[in-house]
């Protein structure tokens, strides 16, 4: 049984303690326990170390999405909003799902009701279309990001590990980056009045966890990993699938790699 998306589950059986003691222990120190379970410790960009420090320069992240596996359940979009405290209204998304229906008359219909968070309205018709599928979308964390290029003050930037972030305490809210993003990945946060977008769950990956959307995907349609590391699940994904990126002609060098992406997807 292969588990593509998860980076190594401990194979040994848990100790035979009494559940009550174990639970009491975890209740007190659950964050530390969580971190110990995945064997990495809290990093600090300013350089203070606590044990094994997270070195951003040792990583370079990307994501793989297999369109052929997405079932459009919307768990990813829902988990993302919960994990990142994204406003729940249907106008603000870090990630969302699109449904494409390519009809036999050539017309393509695309929809994304509330980003796909509550799933999609049931369609029982089985005829009249050639192809239909779901496509998850998110910030592509481009290697050549037009959003970072246009930020007038340096509030949005790329970290050494390839994640494009926004510093909400420095952003002036000019919205130029939102205009410059070809993928519609950014929005202005209604409360902070600064630009916001998917962070690849940076607060999770720096602790050795997976982004929330990757973790909850039931079919393993999303793969997270290292772009340059041969042993990463992402490398296998990019080896065995024909990879497309969105809007390649714009030369933004996206780091979200799509397998089985249809030409109708823009």
């Amino acid at each position, binding site marked *: 049984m292969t588990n593509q998306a998860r980076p190594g*589950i401990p194979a040994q059986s848990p100790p035979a303690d009494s559940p009550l003691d174990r639970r009491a222990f975890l209740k007190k120190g659950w964050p530390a326990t969580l971190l110990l379970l995945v064997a990495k410790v809290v990093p*600090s960009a300013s350089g203070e170390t606590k044990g094994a420090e997270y070195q951003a320069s040792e990583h370079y992240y990307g994501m793989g999405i297999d369109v052929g596996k997405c*079932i459009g359940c919307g768990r990813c979009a829902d988990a993302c909003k919960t994990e990142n405290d994204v406003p729940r209204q249907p106008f603000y998304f870090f990630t969302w799902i699109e449904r494409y229906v390519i009809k036999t008359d050539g017309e393509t219909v695309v929809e994304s009701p509330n980003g796909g968070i509550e799933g999609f309205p049931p369609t029982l018709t089985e005829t009249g279309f050639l192809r239909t599928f779901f496509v998850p979308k998110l910030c592509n964390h481009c290697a050549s990001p037009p959003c970072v290029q246009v930020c007038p003050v340096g509030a949005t930037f790329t*970290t050494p590990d390839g994640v494009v972030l926004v*510093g909400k305490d*420095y952003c002036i809210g000019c919205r130029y980056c939102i205009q410059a993003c070809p993928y519609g990945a950014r929005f202005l946060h209604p409360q902070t009045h600064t630009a916001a977008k998917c962070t690849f769950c940076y607060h999770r990956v720096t602790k050795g966890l997976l982004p*929330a959307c990757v973790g909850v995907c039931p079919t393993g349609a999303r793969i997270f990993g290292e772009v340059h590391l041969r042993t990463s699940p992402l490398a296998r994904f990019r080896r065995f699938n024909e990879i497309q990126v969105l809007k390649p002609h714009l030369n933004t060098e996206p780091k979200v790699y799509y397998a089985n992406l249809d030409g109708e997807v823009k």
Partner: protein
Amino acid sequence: MPQQISRLLILFTLLILGLVVARHYLVPKTFGRLGHYRAAAVDAIVARNVKYVGREACASCHDDIVKIHSLARHQTVACEACHGPGAAHMEAPTEHKPPAPRKRGSCPLCHGYDPSRPTGFPQIDPVAHNPVKPCITCHNPHAPEPPQVPGECSACHGQIARTKAVSHHALLPCTRCHETSQQHKVTPRLSRPTKPRDRAFCGECHAKDARSPKEIPRIDMASHGKRYACWQCHYPHNPELR
């Protein structure tokens, strides 16, 4: 130097000096350390709370469930996909119990029939499939293999089965054309059924000299669409479709 220039120079020097001094006090201390941005911004983002803990965390207490779950068909489904974020539960296990979806409405989110889902994904009609009963009556969510599978292939390949059922090929079992091993039910994408390889296969029934029931339409295998494989024009699950 003309008086105008000297006066202007004084004014501009004062202005520029003022800007330089202001800059010294106003630019954030961590700016520029890692790049053209405030390095402290990274710290602020990293310090955010984690809400989804991941299945390793669940396994530390619920190892019995995890053991069953990791061997069954829902092994790729994260605990938190159905039970929601687990951080609050880890902090205060008895006060914050994660919800366990028990109603009929929860499972069709993934398993309700939608033609946009990939072929072969197990789907049911949420209205017609064992109406009213909660799904968990028959399916243990941690080991959801159904108690019995009435139609071997149609359980996952419903659309194909429905299409074939009203076609001229309705009475043909799927296995007549697709050799399938039992492993396909365990790892469907890795152990795929075969597909017919050549025209002669269809000719076993449809050739002029084939030994098959009289009512089956015959064609001259040598001349009929001789450059093509049969299925390039005739959809095998609905061969009379024009």
